[in-house]
Structures are given as structure tokens and as C-alpha cells.
């Protein structure tokens, strides 16, 4: 009997199709791995399986029961983000979501709760005590605690683990895999979502590969194909993206604008790269690889950071955004709503706030000049807005972004860090943003750093790509080598770029298992 069967799930959000006709079947005792890049639809799929999201069409059948759009007690779910009660104990964290103190009584008894927590904790070999506060234990223990919470309610048939190993070390991963083994031996199933291809190869009974919301590859035990990292990368790449129009600047790059050597800071270490006039340099990497942190540290929004940065040959001082702007370095945040626009102010004042020195005299702002500048941006970048007095939050994401980029350009910068500039923007407006990026690189001869989770964007817009994995540069990819497989392999820490990890047998799963101290 198939424990979980999803049939033709489709879900769209305004501007994006998150899932397109996705079907998966999870058999008893199987570990079903789901892989795909950021934005491939993994999260939406998981949320649909757990009933958090109701699909536009399609059905979800759990243990022969239609549970589309509602939660089923047969499914246990460990989300990617930690959501613990930091100021409560480990034991309380395990049992509170289940609404019980580790027993049937309606009264809460800390001793009974702690005692009930111990078996689950021992199963995962957690080293903290049931009475420790969740905020005091290590990140890895917190991750295990989140898993323990799911295991504590023992009546599930399918366990969904969304990137459970990101914070874990080898012995802890080994313990988790052993627990997965116990569960499958009991005839239960695990759905395992990960970016680590070695884990997929070690665990899988079946693999489903997602891209752009569609299933682009599937294998299970009956398949005769040889499944290795190359197969997965190939499946994720598919027939390759139809790049269509390329937006890379086509003029030769100019002199070096910025030189970064051995820069370390919060979430990244030992980063080196150069940025030249007239080029678009991509920062590719998974969420959490340190892309935004690097840009924010150079710009000065994030304090701290050590290493050598030179700007037009001169030493660059970190930690001072005002100075960065005055010297021609600008950063646009990926959090457009909270870190970009001033939501409740009119478009005119949003423009004015970034250019106060130019638009004021003796400390008094000229609304007429603000308006003239705004009208110029509106005309130059084809912004659609009812008037300059419209509150900027009433503009579409694409038009907000054009205003922010236009405002930044008015200050005459030499370097622009664009952090996910097309997030939440519809397809038509994306092309406008790409054209704008190319135009400022070619005509203004600016150096652009484009941070993006979208493979297509990186491939279409960048002259060169710095691939980041877990806070370090895993590869620098020039224009002639720039294709999806190369970039994917580099940001996933797999494939040729990581070839040195392979041992003598040539079977990667053996070596990785051995390296992690697992029994295969």
C-alpha cells in the first residue's frame, strides 16, 4: 500500500506557478528524496503535503484517505526553519506542540515531562538535559530537538524532513540516518529534502527532482539507471535552460574598480574577487551561503569584517554606509519592502530621501525639485505610477524596484550591489530590470554585483560568476565556462569542483559514508 500519493498537484501564486502537475508516490519503508534548486517548488510541495497549502488542483491521498488541504495525523513534519520556544525547556519544547506535558493529565508536571522526554532524546543521542533552556543549547542540538519533537508523537506513518542536516555535524547526521533506518524498518516512510547530493545518494529509495515547479526527473528502486551525482545534476539541468535573450554587457570590461582579498565576516570567510568597470559579476549560491552578508559588509550595513578591500586602488573602510554612498558604492537590499522602500511615503519622497543633499538648500527640501527628479526617473525607466504623490507601497514590485534603482543611479555611483533585484517581480518587469542592469554597465561603465538565487538570471545577466558554498568561494566561473551544470555543481558543493573528495572505489556514496563514519 502506498502511504502517500500526491496526484497532479498544481499551485500558483500571483506571477508564479509554484507547482505544475506534480505527482509523487511514497511507498512504505522508503526514503523518498526531493532535490531541486532554490525556488524549484520544494517548499510549496512540502507545505501542500502537510496541508498548510491547499493546491489549486490535484489530490493528496494519505493512507487511502483524501487529505487535500488539511493536516493528517499520519504525517509528521520537521520544517527547515527552527521554530522553538527559546525560553522554555527542551522537554517542554518536545511536548508542547502536541498539547501535552508528556502524559494524559491536564496538569503540567515538569518531572513527568522531563522523564517522558528522555527516551526520545536518547534515540537521537542528544547530550543536553531535558531541563535545559532551548536557547542555551547548541545549534545542532536545537536542530535535533526539532526532530525529537516530531518523533515524540509516535503515530505518524510519513516523516517529512526539510533540510534537517544543515546545522549538523557528522556524528549527528549518522545518528539521524540511523533513526531513519529504524523508521523505515518499521514500514514507515521518510520524505527527505536536502541540498547535499551525497546524502541523497546515501539514503534514497526514490528520488524526485524538481525544477521551476515541475518534476524533471524521477527514479526508484526498479530503475536500472546508474544514479550518481552527475545524474542528479543532469536531471536538475534538464535540457538546459532556454536562455533566449542574453542580457550580459557586451563591451569589454574596463579598469579594476574593487579588489577584495581574504575578506571574512559574519557568515563568510576568506572571500576574494575583483570587480571591473562595465561588467556584471554574479554571486551565485544557495540561501545561507553568505552572498548578501558579503555585499552588506563591503557596503558597511553589516558591521565587522576583516580582510583587505581596495576601491579604485585606495584602501576601503568597512562599516560606514554614508561614506560608501558618498564614494559611489550603493547597495540595494533583497528585502525590498522592509529594507528598501519607505512604504507609507509617496514616490516623490522615496526618491528625495536618497538624494537629500542634491534636492535641498540650507536644510530645506524643495518639493518641486523632488518632483522633477521623480518625473525624470519615471520617464527614464518607464515606471508606472498614478502620480508622484502615490504611496510607493501601492506600486507593483517591479515599479518599486525601478524607482529604487533609478534613485541610486541619480547619485552617480561607480559600483552597485543588487541583491535579488527581481524577487517578487513579474516576468515582464524582470526583463525591464535586466535591460536596465545591462544599460548601466555598458553606458555608465559601472561595476555591478548581481546576487541571485535564480539560475536563469545568473546565466543570462552575468559576465562572470563567483559561486559560494557555505560561506566560501567554491569556484569562479568565467563567461566561456558559464553554464548551468558548472554553476549548479559549484553552489551545491558537488561534481567536478569537489572531485578531490572521491576515494579509490569511485563509488561516491561509499566514500562519503566512510568519511562521515557511517555504516553502509
Amino acid at each position, binding site marked *: 500500500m502506498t502511504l502517500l500519493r500526491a496526484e497532479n498537484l498544481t499551485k500558483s501564486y500571483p506571477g508564479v506557478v509554484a507547482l505544475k502537475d506534480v505527482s509523487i508516490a511514497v511507498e512504505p519503508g522508503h526514503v523518498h528524496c526531493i532535490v531541486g534548486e532554490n525556488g524549484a517548488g520544494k517548499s510549496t510541495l512540502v507545505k501542500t503535503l502537510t496541508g498548510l497549502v491547499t493546491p489549486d488542483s490535484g489530490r493528496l491521498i494519505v493512507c487511502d484517505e483524501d487529505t487535500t488541504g488539511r493536516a493528517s495525523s499520519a504525517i509528521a513534519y520537521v520544517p527547515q526553519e527552527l521554530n522553538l520556544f527559546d525560553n522554555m525547556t527542551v522537554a517542554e519544547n518536545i511536548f508542547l506542540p502536541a498539547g501535552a506535558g508528556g502524559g494524559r493529565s491536564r496538569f503540567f508536571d515538569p518531572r513527568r515531562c522531563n522523564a517522558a522526554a528522555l527516551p526520545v532524546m536518547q534515540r537521537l543521542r542528544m547530550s543536553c538535559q531535558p531541563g535545559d533552556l532551548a536557547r542555551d543549547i547548541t545549534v545542532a542540538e536545537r536542530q535535533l530537538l526539532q526532530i525529537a519533537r516530531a518523533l515524540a508523537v509516535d503515530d505518524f506513518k510519513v516523516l517529512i524532513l526539510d533540510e534537517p542536516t544543515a546545522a549538523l555535524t557528522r556524528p549527528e547526521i549518522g545518528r539521524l540516518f540511523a533513526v531513519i533506518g529504524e523508521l523505515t524498518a518499521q514500514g514507515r516512510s521518510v520524505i527527505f529534502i536536502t541540498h547535499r547530493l551525497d546524502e541523497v545518494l546515501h539514503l534514497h529509495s526514490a528520488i524526485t527532482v524538481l525544477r521551476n515547479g515541475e518534476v524533471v526527473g524521477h527514479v526508484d528502486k526498479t530503475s536500472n539507471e546508474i544514479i550518481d551525482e552527475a545524474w542528479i545534476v543532469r536531471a536538475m539541468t534538464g535540457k538546459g535552460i532556454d536562455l533566449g535573450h542574453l542580457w550580459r554587457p557586451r563591451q569589454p570590461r574596463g579598469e579594476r574598480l574593487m579588489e577584495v582579498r581574504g575578506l571574512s565576516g559574519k557568515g563568510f570567510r576568506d572571500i576574494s574577487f575583483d570587480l571591473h568597470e562595465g561588467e556584471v559579476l554574479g554571486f551565485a549560491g544557495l540561501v545561507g551561503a553568505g552572498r548578501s552578508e558579503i555585499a552588506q559588509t563591503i557596503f558597511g550595513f553589516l558591521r565587522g569584517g576583516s580582510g583587505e578591500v581596495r576601491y579604485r586602488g585606495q584602501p576601503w573602510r568597512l562599516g560606514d554606509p554614508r561614506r560608501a554612498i558618498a564614494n559611489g558604492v550603493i*547597495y540595494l537590499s533583497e528585502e525590498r519592502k522592509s529594507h528598501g*522602500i519607505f512604504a507609507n511615503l509617496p514616490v516623490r*519622497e522615496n526618491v528625495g*530621501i536618497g538624494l537629500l543633499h542634491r534636492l535641498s538648500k540650507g536644510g530645506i527640501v524643495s518639493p518641486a525639485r523632488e*518632483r522633477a527628479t521623480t518625473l525624470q526617473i519615471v520617464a527614464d525607466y518607464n515606471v508606472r505610477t*498614478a502620480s508622484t504623490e502615490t504611496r510607493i507601497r501601492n506600486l507593483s514590485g517591479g515599479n518599486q524596484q525601478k524607482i529604487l534603482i533609478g534613485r541610486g543611479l541619480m547619485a552617480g555611483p561607480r559600483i552597485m550591489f543588487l541583491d535579488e533585484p527581481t524577487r517578487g517581480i513579474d516576468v515582464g518587469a524582470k526583463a525591464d530590470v535586466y535591460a536596465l542592469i545591462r544599460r548601466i554597465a555598458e553606458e555608465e561603465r559601472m561595476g555591478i554585483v548581481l546576487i541571485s538565487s535564480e539560475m536563469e538570471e545568473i546565466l543570462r545577466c552575468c559576465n562572470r560568476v563567483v559561486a559560494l558554498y557555505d560561506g566560501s568561494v567554491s569556484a569562479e566561473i568565467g563567461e566561456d565556462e558559464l553554464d548551468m551544470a558548472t554553476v549548479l555543481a559549484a553552489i551545491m558543493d558537488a561534481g567536478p569542483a569537489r572531485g578531490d573528495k572521491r576515494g579509490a572505489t569511485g563509488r561516491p556514496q561509499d566514500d562519503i559514508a566512510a568519511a562521515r563514519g557511517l555504516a553502509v
Partner: protein
Amino acid sequence: MQQIAIAPGAAPRRKLRLGGQMIGIIGAFLVLIGISALVSPQFISSYNLTIMSRDLAFIGIVATAQGLLLLLGDIDVSIGAIAGLAGIVCAKMIVDMGADPALAIPAAILVAAAAGALNGLIITLLNLNSLVVTIGMLSVYSGLNLLITQGRTIVNLPKHVTFLGSGQAFGLPVTLWVMLAMFLVVLFVTARTVFGRQLYAVGNSREAARIVGISEVRVRVTAFAIAGGLAGVAGILLCFRLMSAQATLGQSWLLPSIAAPVIGGIATTGGIGTIWGALIGAAIMVVIGNIIVLGGVGIYLQQIVTGLIVVIAVALDAIMRRFSAGN
């Protein structure tokens, strides 16, 4: 291709004029006045209008001060105690130390501005919650007022000084003229100056403000200092009006200083509303307080009724905002 629809017209002057949202609040104010005039014939007597304009002078100033901070998403609940501090320092200097009022008044305003700035520095440099910090500072400044007065009332202020608190000029109380002057200056600062733009920017998003190079700390500390100074002016005027200063001076202004701007459409979350709201909110508060007395509501009920009206007004504003955001 280009479909730019920009309404032609004069340069925008919106914030100096009343915004669209303000029209509803002014409408409510006019209805309130109409009802009040119907309920009590004395309401529009010149005697009563004078009383109300005196109240409005004080509440208008502290509401303007608090409004500035609310626009930032901050709050200073020690504002009444700071006002009292200024009044007491001023009276002490004039009466006990024989200082010239022309020196004592600016000195007392500076003391109040410094007290406000100190609040701002503690909040921004240590990254603390402004409500919690200023609750503590409320106790500090109230205690300071007790310490300076030693619990006694300072009296015997000279006549030419108390004129500022109780006299009339051009048919209106002097205090009202002072309030209007302060209000117009703050209105201009918030609507037309670089500092005003930065204030709204920080109130909307501290992060976005830092990304465009605005020093969030400088803007917030300056606003706390201005608010303290304004409160100081109100405290000094009240001291002159009462012809005395004691430790409780300004203590009753906490509720109206917050309620008035909120009733006038300044959101406590920051960045929304205009300083006009503080003035009109203050006027609404004064009229409500007045009509409760004229309408014969028992003295023991007054506080309850005032409080309820404030809560209802705030709830209505929030509901309207949610409704308009949904569209």
C-alpha cells in the same frame, strides 16, 4: 510603449496643507463641536472658549512634541516630568537665585532638551525599547523634581513673568500664541526640511534609512531633544500660569500627549500621519474634556469617559487603516 500617467499640476505641497486622511478627522471634530453646542449653550460662550484655548495651548505643545517621536516609531512617557523639570528649574532660578527671566527661561528649556536627549541616547546607543527606558526615566525626572523643590511649592514669581502664562495678546491667550508658533515651526521642519524627511524615513524603516546613508542615531536623538525642549516650554508656561511650581507640575500630560497625536492619525508604529494630527487631536481632547464638565457628567465619571473615548478613537483608526490597506 510609454504609458506614464502623471497628473499635471502645481508642485506638491501636501504635508503643509491638510492631507486627505485629515479631512475625516476634522469632520469628526466639527461634528463634536456641533453636538457640544447643542448639548450645552455655554459651550460657545466667550468665557468657555477662553478656557478651552488655554487648555489647548498646553496640550497642543506636548502633543506636538510626542507626535514627533511617534512619527519615528518612538515614545517618551517621561515627557510630563521633563516639562515639570523645566518649570521648576525656571522658577527656582528666578525666585531663589534671582536670575533674570531672560536667562532663566532659555536655560530651563535647554535643561529639558538635555533630558530628552539623554533619553534618546540611552535608547539608541544601547538599542533599548523607548517605552521601557522612558518609564524608568519618568521616575528619575519625577524624583529630580521632588529633590529640587524639596516637596515645597515655589511661589512669588514676578508679575511681568506670570503675564506670559495668564495674559492675553491680540484677543487670545499668550500661551495659545506660543503654542501656534511652536506648532508652525515643527510643521515646517517635518514637512520641508532635510531633517523632516529623515525623520519620516527612519519612522518608516530604520534599515532602509541606514541603506540610504541616514544616521538613525543622530535623527532619533535630535528628535528626543526637540521633544524635550518643547515639553520644557509647556512646563514653563504652566508654571507661569499657576504662578508657582511644585513637583507634580506637568504630571497630568502623559495621557493627552500620546492620545492626541494618535486620535489625529499618527500611528504609534511610526512613519504615518502628519503633525497636523497632533494639533487636531489635541483640540478634540480638549473639547471632550470640556463637554464632559459642561454636560454635567459627575466628576468621578470623567476619567472613565475620557479614557474610553481615547480607546474607541484609537480602535476606529486602526480598523479604518486595516480596511484601507486591504484595498
